[in-house]
Each structure stands twice: as C-alpha cells, then as structure tokens.
C-alpha cells in the first residue's frame, strides 16, 4: 500500500518532467516557421505596468513593450494584430520563454550577462534605457540616497532590483531592511501604508506605480540612478533566424525615426529616391527576404505601429501620465545626444 502510493507520486513527477519535452519539435523547425504555421505570435508581457505593457479601459494591451510585439507581428504577417499576449510575473518570465510558452518576451526585462549567457536566452536589443531609482515620502525630509542609512525598503522579488539595492547599500556601508513582494500591487500597498521608508524599482516603474498611491504628490523620487537597466526583448538562444527577426524589427523602428519615416508619411516615402529609405521600406534590395520575411516588412511595421519615437511619445513620453521626457535623456536618438542607435540597413 505504502509502496504503491510512493510509485504513484513518482509517476506523477515523471509526467511533470516529460511535459518539458513536448516543444522539442517546434524548436527544430525554428520559431519563425512555427509562428507562421500557427498564424500568430505569443508575446510575454508584464501583469500590468502602465506605459510598458498594460490593459487600457477597453481591455486592449497598450505600452511600448506591447507595441514592439505588434511590430514583430506586422513584420512577420503584415498584420499588427496577429499577436496574443501572455501576462507573466517577473518570476515566471524566463521559464515561460525557455519552455516555449511564449515566442518572444517583451516585458521590461533588464539585459544582464547572467541572463544572456546562463539562461539560454538572447537579448535582441534595447528598447528603453532605464535605471533603478528610489522614491520616499516627502515627509521623511530625505533629499538624496546617501541619507538612507537604516531605511526599510519595499521591492519586487525575482528582479535585479533586489541585487542592485543590496549592492548600493553595501558599497556605501549603510544598513537596510528589504521587504520583497511577488506582485507590484502589494509592494505599492505596503509602501503606501508605511511598512517601508523607500520604494525602489526601475525609474520608469516608479513613475508608473506612483500614480497608484493615495497621494502621489506627497512622495519624492530621489535624484540618484543606482543601476543601468537596459530593457529589451528576449528570445530563446540557438534560433538565429527568429533572433534576426526580433533584432531587426527593433532596428527598423529606430532607423525609421532617424530617417524621418513615420506612420504619417510612410505612404509618400514609398516613392522616395533616398537609397537609405528605399532599402528600409523594401523598394530596393532584398533585406526582408534575407531574414525570411516579405520585402516590405519594415514598411508594414512603420505604417501599422509607427517608428520608435512615435511609440515612445504615445506610451511613456512627456504627454502621457508617466511624463518621462525624452529630450536630454539617454533614450533620445544618438543624433540628439542619446543612446538610441541602430546599425544601418545595408
């Protein structure tokens, strides 16, 4: 009797493990082939981060990360709606990608060496240069992070923020207490009730979560940026065809902005004689075919989703609730003194 129940448990364990083998067939044909066969892209996004990936009042996904996935769909299918979204927690995201549950992860994910080299993943580029910041109640009278000795700090589990804040306090020989929650909503609730003195996450995230506080005006974002957080889309390692599609979708959007091609003028630009624009829009060369797509892949992205600057201003820019001004920030184009730079289509 006892032996039989132990065997039952082992069999169940075995079944759970064998579930990991189910996707191996799709791997061999390449993700691009598998995606084309099923007719849509499965995109992993956050569980709700305004400006990046969040559901609007009508239940549609919006945000800069969501727009990137729509751009990939536009490149592959010529239809920016051929994409399905899977909300993932910070903890689940890499497992969901490596197990094949999602085809691409566009979930404000920081590019780090460990993630790039140890998790079997590849980062396709950077669509937002972020950095970790801290927010405190104004009533504490703190003006910079060096005054935070002895603070208790609320944050999310399973992110680089836990490591960065630990490093920062260790470097400066300050003591602190870390209270780490699984979901951002509980972090905000705990911080708002006074459990912690400090709320820390990426600065874009602070700008977004601050809107959920009872009195957003009573809180100050400290000037320090304690880490580099280049956020970008992620794909599985070892599938170069799909990796190329992911990387060049982003490059297309950045190059388009640099060349002045936007969703508003892409129609007239199709007849442009500028060779750079002609290559970008597919009227010259076979750049699209070379990565397994239609030649007008980039034109589709721009007309259906827009160039990088358009998605930035629509989702996180100065005229959105997040009010993250682009001018003068690292997210400006390289021609404007920022870091947004894409290799040329040539």
């Amino acid at each position: 009797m006892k032996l039989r129940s132990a065997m039952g448990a082992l069999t169940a364990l075995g079944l759970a493990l064998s579930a990991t083998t189910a996707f191996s067939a799709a791997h061999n044909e390449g993700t691009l082939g598998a995606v084309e066969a099923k007719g849509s892209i499965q995109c992993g996004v956050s569980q709700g981060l305004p400006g990046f990936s969040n559901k609007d009042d009508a239940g549609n996904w919006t945000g800069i990360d969501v727009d990137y996935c729509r751009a990939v769909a536009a490149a592959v299918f010529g239809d920016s709606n051929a994409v399905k979204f899977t909300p993932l927690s910070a903890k689940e995201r890499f497992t969901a990608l490596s197990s094949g549950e999602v085809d691409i992860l566009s979930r404000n994910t920081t590019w780090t060496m460990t993630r790039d080299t140890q998790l079997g993943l590849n980062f396709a580029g950077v669509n937002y240069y972020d950095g970790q910041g801290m927010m405190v109640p104004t009533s504490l009278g703190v003006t910079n992070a060096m005054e935070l000795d002895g603070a208790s700090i609320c944050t999310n589990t399973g992110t680089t923020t836990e490591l960065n804040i630990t490093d920062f306090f260790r470097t400066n020989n300050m003591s602190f207490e870390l209270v780490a929650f699984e979901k951002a909503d509980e972090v905000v609730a705990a911080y708002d009730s006074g459990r912690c003195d400090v709320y820390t996450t990426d600065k874009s995230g602070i700008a977004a979560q601050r809107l959920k506080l009872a009195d957003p005006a009573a809180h100050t974002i400290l000037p320090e940026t304690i880490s580099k957080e280049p956020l970008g889309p992620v794909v599985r390692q070892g599938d170069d065809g799909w990796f190329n599609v992911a990387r060049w979708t982003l490059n297309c959007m950045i190059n388009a902005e640099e060349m002045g091609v936007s969703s508003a003028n892409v129609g007239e630009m199709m007849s442009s004689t500028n060779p750079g624009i002609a290559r970008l829009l597919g009227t010259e060369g076979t750049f699209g075919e070379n990565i397994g797509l239609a030649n007008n892949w980039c034109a589709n992205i721009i007309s259906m989703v827009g160039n990088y600057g358009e998605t930035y201003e629509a989702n996180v820019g100065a005229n959105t609730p997040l009010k993250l001004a682009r001018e003068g920030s690292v997210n400006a184009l390289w021609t404007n003194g920022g870091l947004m730079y894409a290799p040329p289509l040539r």
Partner: protein
Amino acid sequence: MAHDIGREKDEGGGLAALIYDPKARGLLFQIILLLAVIGFFAWVLDNTITNLAVQNKKSGFGFLEEKSGFQILTTLGTFLIEARPGQATYLDIFWIGVINTLAVAILGIIFATILGFMIGIFRLSSNVILRGFATVYVEVLRNIPLLLQILFFYIVVLRLLPGKREEGMQVGLFGIDLGTIPLNITGLYMPFPVLGEGFGTVLMAFLGACVLAWVVAWLAKKRQEATGQQFPSFWVGLALIIGITAVAFYMMGSPLVWEHPEFRNEGPILRRGYQAGVGSVIVPEFIALWLSLSLYTASFIAEIVRAGILAVPGGQTEASKALGMSNGMNLRLVVIPQALRVIIPPLTSQYLNLTKNSSLAVAIAYPDIVSIFAGTALNQIGQEIEMIFMMMMVYLVISLVTSAFMNWFNDRMRLVER
C-alpha cells in the same frame, strides 16, 4: 502453498510449469513492471537532459556553492543562519527558506489545533451565543479563498499598527493604562536570549528532569493498575521539571541574558524607531501569514472535531455517568479518546494542507522557501528543474514526516481490542 499445487500438476517441470505457477508468474509480472518503470524514468531523464542541452542551459547542483547577493527579511531563518549578502551561499538561502516554512507551519498547526478544538466544541455547546459564533466563524472562514484572507489580514495588520517611528501600541482597559506593547508596523519587538557559558548544563538538567517526570508518571500508572490508588503525577512531574531546571539555572550562575530591543526617538528621522539587530523581532508578514493560515485551517478542524465528537454514541456518556464520572472525566476519559479515532486521519490532511498552503507566503513578502529559493534565487540561477525538484522534496519530506507522526499517534489512539 500455491507453489506446491503447481508442482503437482506438472511433475517434470520446464517452462510451461513456471508459467502455470502463480508465484513465478507473479514474479514475472513484477519484473516486467519494474523494467517498464525504470525504462520510463530513463526515457524522461534522457529527454530532459537532451532538451536542457538544446536550450543551452546549465545543469547540476554546483550553484548551491555560489554566493548570493541579496538580503532577506529578518525572520527565524536569518536569526539561525547568517544571511549577509555576498557571503551567504545559495545553500544557506535554501535552509533559511526551509526554516521559515517550518516555523510558520509548526506554529500554524499548533494554533489551528487549539482554536479548531475550541470552535468545534463551541459548535456543540448548549449556549446559543457560543454556538452561533462558532457557526458563523466556520461558515465565513472556510468559504473565502485563503489567498484573499492572507492579503486581507496583511493589509489590515499594516493599517492597524502604529507607524515605524512610534514605540508601540498603548493598551488600556476601562481607563487603566496597562502599558505599551512594543509593536509597530515593522513588527513585534522582544528581548533576544543571549546564552552564556553553562547553559548546556541547564539544558541537560531540564532533559533529565523530563525523564524523571516520565518515570514518576510510569510508576504511578503501574501502582494505580496494581492497587487502584491514584497519584497526582502530572503536578509532581511539572514541579520536578520546573524545580530541577531552576536550581540548575541558579547554580550555573544564571547563564542567560536577555538583550532588550532599543528604541531611539532622536537623531535623523530614518534612524529613529527600533534599531535593527538589537533584540528580536517578529515581522508583520509572519504575523499575518500565521494568523490567516491558522484561522483558515481552524475552521476545517472545528468541523472535524464536531464530527468526531458526534460519532461517539450517546450511550457511552450515559454509561460513564452511571459509573459516577464527572463531566470533565467523561469528556477526558471516555468521549475524547473515542472521538480522536475519528478525528486524527482527517486532521492529518489538514496539517498537510496548512504546510502546503504556507507557500502563499510569497504574496506578502514572508521569506519562505518558495519566495526566496524558487523566487529570487531561481531568477538569478535559472535552473528550474533542480531548484523546483529541491522544493518539491522539501514539501514531500515535511509532509511524510507529519504523516508518519500522525500515523504513529493514530496507532496509539486505536481501539485496543482484547
């Protein structure tokens, strides 16, 4: 026996005889089944390794030696194992998680059992108010999802407690000030026992006294069985334990100092409040999780207890009354021993449920094994299979130990038929 019958049928033997021999046939099927099971697992293992290689992922348990770089909330685990970032290994993180899971599970089981028995008995009370309260308790608590209750308790606990820079909660009754409980939003502060030299001897004396008390109880029982004379062995035993331990404690020169928490009310605002690392603290995350797990499980235990008591025929009570037993003796010596036989098996399931439900801790930042090992550590290491496997083993071992203990207890409580 069966073997012999097979022989008789076919004297010369051979392969045919073996097949018709039920024992040999049984053995054959067992071997086939065993091979199939081994083959299945070999296939699963091979498939998993192949797929991991395809995904370019690391495997193995080498990561346990690596140093972790994050801080863990002050809890029992971090009191027992130092978790300084950059020095604690992932194995330390694992054990801290295990200790924290065990702490909330064990304390939860104790509180849930006490509360569950009380509520269960209240449900059978003749007092309308008690019965009504118990009914409402059971019906409300067991019909709301546990995760909601945990979040609710957590937010309520946080909102009720005084702020971080306040010393504690004023407690008063009928206008009389009963002092301040050192409890604010960062936790309940208590003295921390600092053990001095010679405490080991005190501990030995305590254990010795326990053995002595057990011997006294055993002798008293023997005597009662032989002569019918009763002896207050419980009180004598208690006196022995307390007395011997106290004498040893003072003879060793009181080798125990209490380190009191320190509250500071001046200096920079962030440094005010209770000072970290002085005294000990129970964080509100633990309090909320422990309370909600216990209250939720108690509602199920109450129903089990009620069912157990109702399962004892009324004739038993009447018989014990006829023998001249008091109400207390009736409950203690007749009803509960028989009710326990019905109560224990489902009670075991509730204990296991409580332990497994403690994994919901991650929602409210209590650093249990799921939160810190399968959460933060997993996100840094990324070896799901090894780490989830270790976690499953933890829960399996805890559950099997709980089951084994409860089965042993059940055997002791079984009706002994003569």
